[in-house]
Structure formats: C-alpha cells, structure tokens
C-alpha cells in the first residue's frame, strides 16, 4: 500500500487531537500554547499534503502553510507577552488562578 493522502490526513488528525488534549489538560499557560502549536502543525500538514496530492499545479497550500507558520510565531509572541504580563500581576502562569472575572 502506497502512502497517500489519507495517511497524511490521519496523521494530521492525530496531531490535532493531541493538540486538543494538550490544551484541555494543561493549567500551565505555555503548555496550552504548545497544544495550540500542535494543532497548527496538524493544519499545516493537511495543507501541504493537500497541495501535494489534490491541488497540484499551484502552491496555494504551501503558501498558506508558510503564513500559518508566521502566524504561529506571531501568536506565540503575543501570547507569551500576555503570559508574562499575567505572571507579573498574578505571580503564576496557572491559568486557573485567573478567575477573578466571572459571573
């Protein structure tokens, strides 16, 4: 059996699931961010695989993936800055500690 599109897609889905689980099981803000990175990578894998197998001719998928990488970096930057700010105010990065706003 040759390795085709479904293989990549399933692998991406697994990564995505891993990302989701990571997000949902972490209280550490940066841990959550890592989960998000996993999800983004899953998307990227999809994009590249689709570009390779089902949308040949143009490089849309790869360009998209490139931008996603950029976005991921940007997001990480913003998120980390915010975590840092949170840490400055709460002295922790446990997101569960941020529960003063509610209702």
């Amino acid at each position, binding site marked *: 059996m040759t390795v085709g599109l479904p293989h990549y897609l399933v692998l991406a889905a697994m990564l995505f699931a891993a990302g989701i689980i990571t997000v*949902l099981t972490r*209280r550490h803000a940066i841990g*959550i961010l890592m989960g998000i990175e996993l999800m983004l990578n899953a998307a990227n894998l999809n994009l590249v695989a689709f570009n390779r197998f089902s949308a040949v001719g143009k490089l849309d998928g790869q360009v998209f993936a490139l931008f996603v990488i950029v976005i991921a970096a940007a997001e990480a930057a913003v998120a980390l800055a915010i975590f840092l700010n949170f840490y400055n105010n709460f002295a922790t990065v446990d*997101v*569960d500690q941020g*529960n003063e*706003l509610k209702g």
Partner: protein
Amino acid sequence: MPTLLTLLLLVVALPLCGFAILLALGKRLGDPLGGYVGTGFSFAGFAAAVAAMAAWISSSYGFGYGVGPLVRSFAWLPIGEHAGQRVPGFLDFTIYVDSFTVVMLAMVTLISAVVHLYSLRYLRGDARTPIYFGRLSLFGFSMTGLLLSGTLLQLLVFWELVGLCSYLLIGYWNERRDARMAATKAFLTNRVGDVGFIIGLCLLVSFVGNTTLPDLWVMLSPTHQTAMSNGLLTLIGCLLFCGAIGKSAQFPLHTWLPDAMAGPTPVSALIHAATMVAAGVFLLIRIDPILTADARLFVVVIGAITIAIGSLCAIAQRDLKQALAFSTMAQLGYMVLGVGVGSRDGAGFHLLTHAFFKALLFLAAGVVIYGMHHKSRLEHYGGLFRRMPVTAIAFAIGALAMSATPYFSGYYSKELIVAHAAAWSQLAADSGRSGLWSLALWVPVIGAYLTPFYLTRLWMLTFTGRPRDLEAFEEAHEPGMLSFPLVVLSGLAVVSGFDWFPVRSMVDSSAVETRAQVSALTGPASPVNPLEHDWPSRVHLSMPDVETDTAPTSTEAGDDRVEAGAAQAAHLTHWAWLAGIIAGVVIYARGFALTERLARLSVLSAPREWLRHRMYFDDLYRWVFVGAARLAGRLIDRLDRRVIDGLIDRLALAYAALGRVTASADDLIVDGVVRGVSSGVLTSGLGVGQTQGGRVRVYVASAVLMLALTVIGTVAWAVLR
C-alpha cells in the same frame, strides 16, 4: 298651545332656576333670604302649574282635557341613525302630558310650595338653609321633570335624580350617623330596584327599539306585529315594576323608608310621603297598558304583602314619624295592588288624595316634633291637644281621611281600589282558583281595619291623656307659620275626593286621552284598535291563564263585577273602619297603660318585638347583603393582591431564579455540566471536593466539547446518510 307648553316647561324650569341661584349665591344669601328665594320659586312653579291646569282644561288644540294627550318629541340621542337603526329616535326627549300629568303637576307643586313655606319656619336658624332649599328646589325640578317624561329612559333619568335629592335631603343632617346611613341605604336600595328597571328598559330597547310611552303601548299590544311572547312581556313588566318596588318602598325593598325619616320632617312630608315615593305608582300607571295578567298577579302579591307589613309594623312603632312611614308604605301598597287588580284609576286617584292627607299628617307630626324640641318618640307625648289644637285637629282630619272615613277624600279613592280587588278575587273564584286568591281582597280589608286603629293610636297617644314628658310639654307650642300649611292641606284632604274637585275627573279623563292617542297612532286605517277589548276603561280585569275572550273582562261584565265588588267592599270597610277606631280609642285611652299590661303576656310580647323591629328585615339585609358585599370586596381584594399579584410576583421570582441559574451559563455549563459530568459520573466523588478549577480553560473545554459534539453528530449523520 305655546302658552300651555311654555307653562309646563316653566313648571319644570322655575325650580331649576331656584336651584341654580341657590347653588351660586346660596352662601351670600344666607339663612332666611335663601329660603325666601327657594319658596318664591316654588310658589311661582305652583302658579304656573295651576295656570297650566286651567289652560289644559280649556284647551282646544286637539289635545287637552278629555281630548288627547300632548306629545312632543325632540331628538336627544339619535344613536345609530347612520347605522340603519330599526326604530330611529328611540332615545328621543319626549314630553307626554295628559290630564293625570297635569293634576300631578299641580299636586306636586302645591305640596312643594307648602313644604317650602313650612320649612322656612321649621329650619329657622340653621346656617345651611340655602343648601337645604337648593336641594328642595332640585327635587322640585326633578319631580316635575319626571312627571313630564314621555319615554321610559327619560323617566329613569329623573327617577334617579329624585333619588339623588332624596339622598341629599335625608342626609341633610349628615353629622348624625343615622341620617347619613339612612341616606346611603335609601340610595342603594333604590339602585337595586333600578337595576330591574334598567334591565327591563334595555329589554324593551332590544325588542322594540323604543321607549317612548305611546309607541310602547302600541307596539306591545297583542295585535301589533312586534308583539312579544306573553312570558317575555310579563318579565319586562315585572322588571320595570322592580323600579317601583324600590322607589315606592314595596316589599322586599321597603326597609329604607322608615330609616329615611332621619331627614327633616318637611322633607319626609314632601318626598317620602306625598310625591317621590308615589313615583313608583306613577310609573306603574304609565306602563299599565303593557302589564300582562301574570305581571299583574306579581304586582298584586307585592302590593298585598306590603300592605300587610306596613300596617302591622305601623302598629308597634314608638316613633311618630316611623309609624307614619309604615303607614305610607301600606298606602303605597294599596296603590300598587290597585294597579294590579286593574284599578288604574283607583291607584291614580288614591295617589293624589294620599299625597294631600299624608303630607298633612307629616306636617302635623312635624309641628309636634318641632314643638317638642325634636323629640319624636311617643313616650314623650300625651295631652298635646291643649298646647296645639290646630295641629291636633289637622292631624285628626288627615287621619280620618286616610282611614277612609266617609266624605273624606281617602274614602273615595280607597273604596275604588277595594272594589276592584273584590271584583278581581271574585273573578278568581269564578275561574276556580284556590281561596288564597281571595287574600287580594282580604288583605286590603284587614288593612282598612288596621289603618284607623294605628292612626287612632297615634292621635290618642299624642294629643290626649296626660303629658308624659312634662318638661317638654311645658314648652310645647305651635307657631302660626307652621299651622297655615296644615289648614290648607286639611281642606284639600277633605275635598279632593269629591267629584266636583278636579282630581277624580282628571284621572278618569287621562284614560280617555290615552285611548285617543293610541287610536291616533295606529291610525284610522287600522281595522282594530289594539286595545279595544279591555282597555281603556275604568275596569281592567284580567286573570292569568284565563282566555281573554271567555273571561269576563269585557267592559260591561267588568263593570258589573266592580259594581258588585263596590257594594261588598263598602260593607266590609265600613265595619273595619268602625272597629279600628273603637279599638284604638279603647286600647289607648289611657296611654300606654293597657298595652304595657298586655305586653306582659308573652304571647303578645313576642309579636310586638317582632313588629317593633320591623320584622327584622333590616337586620337580615344587613347581614346578608351588606355583609356579603363587604366580605366579597375584601376577599376579592385579597385574591387580587395575594393570588394574582402573588402569581405575578412569583413569576417574577421564578424568572429571576431562571435568570440566576441560566445567567451563570458559566456556572451551569462549566461547573455544572463539565465538572458535574466529570466528577459525578466519571470519577465519582473526586470532583466535588477538588479545588475550584480555573475558568478560561473550562471555557475552552466547554466550547470544544460543544463543537466536538456537533461535529461528531453531523459527521455521523452525513456518513450514515
């Protein structure tokens, strides 16, 4: 004709002017002056009425005495003309004048004038006299307006207005609790009767679309095309009669009249003896043509019961005015019964004579009360003949007239009624009715025995014997200004029964005029005068369930019966009269002495208490109706506040609670569902005690969970499809 109409309108307008002036300037006019103004206007009204009467009798315009009534309609509330109302103009303003109206007008204005005059003295020194005379003038306006009314609606309007005046005048001394209670009671009791009147009126409007009197007579007669079933007509008749029950203090709405004596005595004389209370009878006479035999039976029963109650209670009253009030009730019962047994003329005649002698009695009683410093109980009186002879004689004349003493006015009128009652009961016997029907004769006859008895009692206890309250007796006096009206009325109480005096003749003539009017309305082309068989004649006999053409209701047969009845009645009432007077003299010759002794017999004390307490009707009504209304009011109010508002408030609470639960979508979904499911279901026991988790993570979890469920569901659906 213009003169006549002008005069009639003047009769109505003059008191209104008096009222307006007194209302506007009363305070400035002050005590005697305001009274003079009111009296002046009332005398002017009387003059106009007399002039109108003269004009009427000599009229030659196609209406007038013995010719026909004067009917004038003006559009007042032409509702629904554009909507194609079936009978247009059903809410017209109509003036209907026949001889009866004219003589009533004269009577009312006369007594009103006399009472005004009397009141000037009676109320001297009261700072509020302008108000009093203003209210009296308003009454004069309302009563005369009532008499001129040509439609039942208009009648109702003035009917209520006289009720208002009655309320205002009974409650004139409103600082007295009994006075203001009596006023309210009078108005409310009347309103109960009026509801019947109004319903009847509305039914009439609903079925024939008209309330104008002559039109009604025509339309409701059996041959007319809008004829209604007998049952419905009976119902309408009874309902309209309900109004009269209230206004004329008939059983069961009679309780207000004795209480109404809390008002000033001249007021009692004018309103609660002579005029307003008779308005019920006036109404009955007006609707007499449309009363069916069954309705008449109802009227007879009510009248008879009232005669019995009034006469019996009058015996036991210790208050002069109250006793007279019950006697008024009884006499009104006679009139009502008279209409019932078919003696429209007798009723009208008795109404007029009664007005004179009853006003006389009240005014005489007023002199006594005034002379005795407003003590009205018989215990304080005795031997007053010496102090106030004119009054005593006037009272005696009034009493004799009322007792149906031959050659006094009451004799003629009451005799007429009793004669018809005898004829009616004979008719009942002929058609195989039970003996109970003869009570229609026996009750008036027994009443005719009781009337002289209690009047003698009153006269004896007041004017003879030795004074029981010496202190008051010493100061007792009779001012001349109060005596003058007594003299006038005494004369009328005697003469008004005679044939040459324009009372009986006027009443009789009104029947002829009415007939002429009905003929005119149905038109000469009409083959049959709808009222031909039985009306109008002096005799109007009918019996429930008896076919009109077989029963002896034709004029001749009826006349025969009445002739026979009159003989029988004369026979009975003469003895009753004699027996009553003798019993009165014997029992009360020595004041209360004999009655006190008799009362010790327990057999007699119980009925005496029963009668003295007016047969406990008042207490019954207070318990049942007033109590019930207040209780219901309180209950419904509570219902309103507790239940309905409570429901609303509770809804609001539930709403808020719902808000609280759902508002915290976070709490519910997050801590409830997620944590609840996780800790409760999956790892039972762990979650609850755990430290409260953070929120944003759970937000994410909830959102992802919902998304996941949706996606899983949809994919499953899409794939399976």
